[in-house]
């Protein structure tokens, strides 16, 4: 019998999702025994043409990580959708935009200026910004070539805003165990309904956190703390200690890695089932345990002031998939069309 064909593709991602696959270690060998890889830019030299030549629907599963940021990504994921029976959004970026989705708070001009001009580690004396077409002189060859860049989309989009997605594997990145569980489910063909999250838990992170036993029935906080302010007691629920731990509203499956290392959950496994907007849910939960009455508005605001970036705290991995999708009223800007000389 012919082995199932599998493709891996990356959009706007950091490489951590590929890394998580490599972290399967020996288990990866058993995966490669059972499947034929037809496309995997990170490790193998197949080209877009190779995918185009495949009959429609001939790839059994495509794993796509990263959010859709460029027109190139959009084109590639649409191609893979046509060629695949099952498309999987692999990791938080692909599922909900992830960290790169936080760029949806800014206009493209601001994003490019930050990346290419303002960041302290950038050395760009001629202030060159990416352009649609760029002329590059190559002295060695005594000629000039023109490069065309893929245009940037005004907003980063989660994969399911661009193409139909069958399943989601969450995590930033998904842990090897989660990836393994998902692969097992796929290879066995024992799959939940379309649109489900696979590989992870259906219960909240608290359910698998060793500190859960120390979480009281009701938590009320007078103060919020940030992790740098103190060393938390490793035997006590982090939330009770005033840290914003998003465990109660976040899907489990990671094995509570962060709380076990004394760091609060930042929500990379995303929402539980039937949550419409992760950030809204997280806000609702954090705010409701603040022990202040409406007569103490000033005091409450002082506590809220301690967290400098609420969007980044509540929507760290979810902004692009949120109900508002980012900051409203962003300009419809794209790359400048003019030719820049390098």
């Amino acid at each position: 019998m012919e082995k199932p064909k599998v493709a891996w593709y990356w959009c706007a991602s950091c490489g951590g999702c590929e890394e998580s696959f490599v972290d399967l270690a020996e288990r990866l060998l058993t995966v490669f025994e059972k499947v034929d890889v037809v496309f995997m830019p990170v490790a193998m030299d197949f080209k877009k043409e190779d995918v185009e030549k495949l009959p429609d629907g001939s790839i059994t599963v495509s794993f796509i990580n990263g959010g859709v940021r460029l027109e190139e990504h959009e084109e590639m994921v649409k191609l893979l959708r046509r060629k695949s029976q099952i498309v999987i959004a692999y990791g938080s970026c692909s599922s909900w935009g992830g960290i790169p989705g936080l760029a949806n708070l800014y206009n493209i001009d601001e994003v490019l200026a930050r990346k290419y001009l303002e960041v302290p580690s950038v050395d760009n004396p001629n202030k060159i910004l990416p352009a649609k077409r760029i002329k590059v002189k190559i002295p060695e060859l005594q000629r000039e070539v023109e490069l065309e860049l893929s245009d940037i989309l005004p907003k980063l989009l989660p994969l399911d805003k661009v193409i139909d997605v069958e399943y989601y594997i969450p995590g930033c990145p998904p842990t090897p165990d989660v990836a393994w569980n998902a692969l097992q489910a796929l290879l066995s063909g024992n799959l939940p309904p379309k649109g489900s999250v696979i590989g992870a838990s259906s219960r909240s992170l608290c359910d698998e956190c060793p500190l859960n036993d120390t979480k009281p029935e009701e938590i009320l906080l007078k103060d919020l703390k940030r992790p740098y302010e103190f060393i938390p007691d490793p035997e006590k629920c982090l939330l009770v200690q005033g840290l914003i731990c998003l465990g109660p509203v976040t899907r489990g499956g990671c094995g509570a890695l962060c709380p076990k290392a004394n760091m609060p959950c930042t929500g990379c496994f995303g929402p539980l089932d039937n949550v419409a907007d992760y950030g809204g849910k997280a806000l609702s939960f954090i705010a409701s345990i603040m022990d202040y009455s409406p007569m103490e508005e000033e005091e409450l605001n002082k506590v809220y002031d301690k967290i400098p970036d609420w969007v980044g705290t509540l929507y760290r991995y979810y902004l692009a998939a949120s109900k508002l999708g980012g900051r409203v009223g962003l300009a419809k800007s794209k790359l400048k069309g003019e030719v820049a000389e390098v």
Partner: protein
Amino acid sequence: MSEGFEPKIVVFACNWCTYAAVDLAGTSRIQYPHNVRVIRVMCSGRVDPQFVLEAFNRGADGVIVAGCHPPADCHYSEGNFKAFRRFTLFRRLLDSLGIERERFKLEWISASEAGKWVQVVNEMVNDLKKLGPLREKLEVR
């Protein structure tokens, strides 16, 4: 701002105070703009910020969450406390997400304050007419 723009306003009104005030405004034959769509909830503490985000997502130009006056009016003792804590933080979130202050209000309106209800609606309708529709700003693509 578009000509003849009529803003859509979604109101989450608590059963015990604000909804009664809306009723009172009606039975007292007080005129006010038809831009509001009132959704009765048992308590302002029942209103999840997700509801408000959903309303904006589905085309509301403004949202009002309204409940009983603190400290002592709440039928469930502290439901409005929860609403206060949530929407004080939610307001900050909306600031960062570019939703103007005029588009979201947390109001305390008691069962007898039909006049205040009408005033709140009038103010928001006027403010939103100046701001224009939210829909255009949501759609970037």
